[in-house]
């Protein structure tokens, strides 16, 4: 094959274009990186926008994934300023590994674990025991090792001594939202998600029943050790706990901690 040779002038302009493409955004204000549990997605996008309009000099970067995955990113040195997880256990691990600033941790929201079924499902289970029925062939559960919703579900199923009966039906989801998507598409017959997730897809899924959880579903938030933007990080945590922040959380169905 023949390869054309670029003229040196052409090369120079290509190189210049690259330099400009990478160099232009430096005029931006300070960036604040928030790693938040997947279930916080919609509420935190709102809060982030509100925070930005109250603090025009700060640009909020949101990073959503399963809480366990976010913890691993932080443990491996990801430049994160604020971490919000969907359970106390993940935040406990962060604290044990000295990844968050001492004394900055605060609970800011509560949620409920529910079992959802596709909107058009013929029948819906009423209790955890009903999930063992043959009509339920596949159940989406977040991978318990990294997804808090999956861990809450696993606790509840273990406590009811039902895990062995349903283990073969379990489809592991990479985050609570992937599990929700599987139910919404009808790929699984049931799934464990949060009440706030179910509310986002009311036209595709319906809540079959609320799962009693022990410990209760609570969301802690904390400043990450080594945050390069401490003042803004403090401001964001305070904003989430403020009346305006709590109003937004309530609008998306989260409860008080």
């Amino acid at each position, binding site marked *: 094959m023949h390869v054309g040779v670029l003229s040196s002038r052409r090369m120079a302009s290509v190189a210049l274009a690259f330099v400009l493409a990478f160099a232009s955004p430096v005029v931006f204000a300070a960036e604040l990186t928030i790693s938040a549990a997947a279930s916080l997605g919609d509420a935190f996008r709102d809060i982030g926008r509100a925070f930005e309009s109250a603090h025009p000099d700060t640009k909020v970067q949101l990073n959503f994934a399963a809480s366990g995955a976010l913890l691993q990113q932080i443990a491996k040195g990801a430049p994160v300023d604020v971490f919000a997880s969907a359970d106390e256990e993940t935040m406990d691990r962060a604290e044990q590994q000295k990844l968050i600033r001492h004394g900055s941790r605060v609970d800011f929201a509560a949620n409920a674990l529910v079992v959802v079924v596709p909107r058009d499902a013929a029948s819906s289970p009423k209790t955890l025991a009903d999930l063992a029925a043959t009509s339920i062939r596949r159940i989406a559960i977040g991978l318990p*090792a990294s997804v808090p919703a999956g861990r809450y579900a696993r606790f509840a199923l273990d406590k009811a001594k039902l895990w062995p009966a349903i283990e073969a039906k379990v489809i592991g989801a990479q985050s609570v939202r992937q599990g929700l998507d599987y139910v919404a*598409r009808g*790929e699984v017959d049931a799934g464990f998600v949060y009440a706030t997730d179910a509310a986002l897809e009311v036209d595709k899924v319906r809540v079959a029943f609320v799962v009693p959880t022990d410990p209760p579903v609570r969301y802690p938030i904390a400043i990450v050790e080594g945050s390069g933007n401490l003042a803004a990080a403090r401001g964001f945590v305070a904003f989430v706990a403020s009346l305006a922040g709590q109003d937004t959380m309530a609008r998306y169905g989260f409860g008080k901690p």
Partner: protein
Amino acid sequence: MEPAWIALGLSLKVALWATAIDLVAGVAVGFALARYRFPGREMVDSILLLPMVLPPTVLGYYLLVVVGRRGWLGGWLERTFGIQLIFTWQGAVLAAAIVAFPFVCKSARAAFENVDVQFEQAARVLGLGAAAVFFRVTLPLAWRGILAGTLLAFARALGEFGATLMIAGSIPGKTQTLSIAVYDAVQAGQDELANGLVLLTSATCIAVLLLAGRLAPSRVPGRW
């Protein structure tokens, strides 16, 4: 058995099936593209190349939409045969077969185009039928190029991750291939397991590449 070995066994099974499917389909399509003129031939060639350039997430989404329970193909498969592909190892084979297909198809086309038509014509004159010409003249002359593409396809199928992640559901022994197992272990902070898995994966890939070098020495495809 160790989870890592289960994942390796599953990865090899998925990659072997995907490669076998691609070999048959890729040789047939590659031959058709090399030997027959038909309208839209180059268009077909480009479309068949798509899985190589499309992001795996796009393929995963297509698969979810097309072969999912509510997809037109998936719905039909379930109603007619009771087959569900999503969350099964067969689904993982489908994903791997699609991403690896261009490797076989492209090299097969190039290999067939390099076979001198005069040999085939001579065989026809000497009384061989079309099928016999293909299997006794054309294929033996093209096999080296096809083999090289097939080994690449196998390596690609073994490494398939993105589309599989979207449709597989991470079920150990069924859909949790090596690449998915690595991802899960890292997400969960199980670094020891992750270390074992990546070493195993790297060793497997080196073995495949060495085998590829042994089977297909660097020669021009289709020439002896």
